[in-house]
């Protein structure tokens, strides 16, 4: 099974600073890490490889520093890693990002399965996975929480909000997985040390030019633009806070609930 796992390097969200006054997001204050959702995709890929044999390729688009996220992926069981790094890729929205990743996947050669995380913690769109599938002309299943290869087919369970669908697909196919799919393993010290020595391939726009239209990369290929960023201040409600008077508060709340009809069960 030839498996591709697209990953993204993101800031550690607990460290990102938000300046309400200036409307600025301080990414530099935060260390960078592999998008937490992608760890589940990587683990799912490595588990299939362990069972069926094959290869796992991690692929990412980003600045040169994103190489460290790919080394993390190698430490966690990926066999090879490709970083798409070029000024021409910068400023990409989901359409240009998915186009660039899909072009690289195509250039890489034949594959059977692409596994993506559900979304990233910074952009939070969840669009890049399904968009890659459309660029490649293959089907996809999103929000997968269970997967298994059975007799040459991929059988998955996906969360359709209130219902689970059991879906069967041939190969090649792309899936996006949720955090319910597995528990990602932690790399050992030796894995990490081996990953430091491993090779991360670097590809720029030129490497993709034989199969892709360079006008569709980066900011040029991105139809959406952020015009304004607002960091909201908590507006607050004119509520009452009861400090040492819980009993009084409960009495008031019970009366209010009664008035709204909640207590009589009119709901």
């Amino acid at each position: 099974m030839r498996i591709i796992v697209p990953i993204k390097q993101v800031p550690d969200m607990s460290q990102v600073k938000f300046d309400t006054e200036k409307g600025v997001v301080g990414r530099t204050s935060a260390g960078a890490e592999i998008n937490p959702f992608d760890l589940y995709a990587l683990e799912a890929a490595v588990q299939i490889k362990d069972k069926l044999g094959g290869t796992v390729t991690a692929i990412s688009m980003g600045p040169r520093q994103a190489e460290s996220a790919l080394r993390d992926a190698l430490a966690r069981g990926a066999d090879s890693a490709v970083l798409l790094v070029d000024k021409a890729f910068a400023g990409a929205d989901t359409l240009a990002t998915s186009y660039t990743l899909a072009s690289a996947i195509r250039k890489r050669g034949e594959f059977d399965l692409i596994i993506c995380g559900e979304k990233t913690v910074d952009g939070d769109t969840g669009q890049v996975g399904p968009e890659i599938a459309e660029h490649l002309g293959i089907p996809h299943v999103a929000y997968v929480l269970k997967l298994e290869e059975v007799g040459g087919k991929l059988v998955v369970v996906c969360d359709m909000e209130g219902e689970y669908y059991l879906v069967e697909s041939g190969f090649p196919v792309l899936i996006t997985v949720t955090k319910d799919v597995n528990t990602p393993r932690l790399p050992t010290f030796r894995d990490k040390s081996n990953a430091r020595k491993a090779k991360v391939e670097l590809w720029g726009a030129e490497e993709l030019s034989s199969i892709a239209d360079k006008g569709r990369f980066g900011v040029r290929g991105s139809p959406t633009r952020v015009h304004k960023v607002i960091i909201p201040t908590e507006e607050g409600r004119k509520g009452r806070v009861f400090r040492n008077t819980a009993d009084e508060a409960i009495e008031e709340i019970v009366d209010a609930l009664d008035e709204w009809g909640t207590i009589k069960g009119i709901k």
Partner: protein
Amino acid sequence: MKNYTGLMVFAEQREGRVHPVSYELLGKGREIADKLGAGLSSVLLGNQMGEEARELIYYGADKVFLYDHPTFKDFDLLNYKHNIVKLVREVKPETFLLGATHLGRSLGPRIAVALATGLTADCTGLGVDEKGSLIQIRPAFSGNIFAHIKTKTRPQMATVRYKVMQSKGRDVGRRGEIIRKEAELVPSLLTIVKKEKSGEVNIAEADVIISGGRGLKKAEDFCILSDLAELLGGAVGASRPLVDDRWIGREHQVGFSGNTVKPKIYVACGISGSSQHLAGMRTSDVIIAINSDPSAPIFKVADYGIVGDLYEVVPKLINGIKRKRS
């Protein structure tokens, strides 16, 4: 770009019923269409959906493009995409909206790429600028910022979060046109073998939600909250850390990366109120917060805040309600 006009809303149906987010989108779509003096259409794919197509008109659509075929009974990704893309190329709406449900967020990106246009994910606000272009407002960075986004290609596409827009309500006096379209079928490539109810209350639909956070000492203590929830006919919710620690299933998670809820009553027990949690419940009608830390941010959004131990306050509240009832 000049040939594109009006708005089109994807009407999502599950088991033959239109998802309420579609009515909300028609509400917002109607407002924008009236402002621009443009038309509002909707596209519905399903099996024997004539009745529901009329509902879309009652909720604000001028035209409904109806694809009635057994293939569309359930979500058939590639056939949905193929027929919608074909329709959009023919009708040329300036704006195309979908609900940011799992179905919408799976389908939307495929349509956007096929049309080589931009798609803005999970919007919580929509407006138009002085030129009539769509302003798409969406949270990012786990709800810490709101970005205003515009799209230079057409159609301008967005998925919009459930329960943030207002439906205009059902008006059976409204007139509109139902246009039946011929389905063009392509290989599905995916087979839905089985569907199973996940057996859980859909927390986004609940009128009363009792949520627990890190103030709970162990997973078993959720029973205190479920007692209160049962009493009020509500559902149990949770903040993200408890879900990540697997104390309770993900379907209970309230917050930016979980469910956005808008119940009549939201009771936050032992929840400090991170921005990521507040983003998922701040629009609740009434918010009651119980927390032992008086400086917890949850109190800023609460209508009633009780500084105290949830292990004392919640049982007292339960007793108070029981007393009132008898």
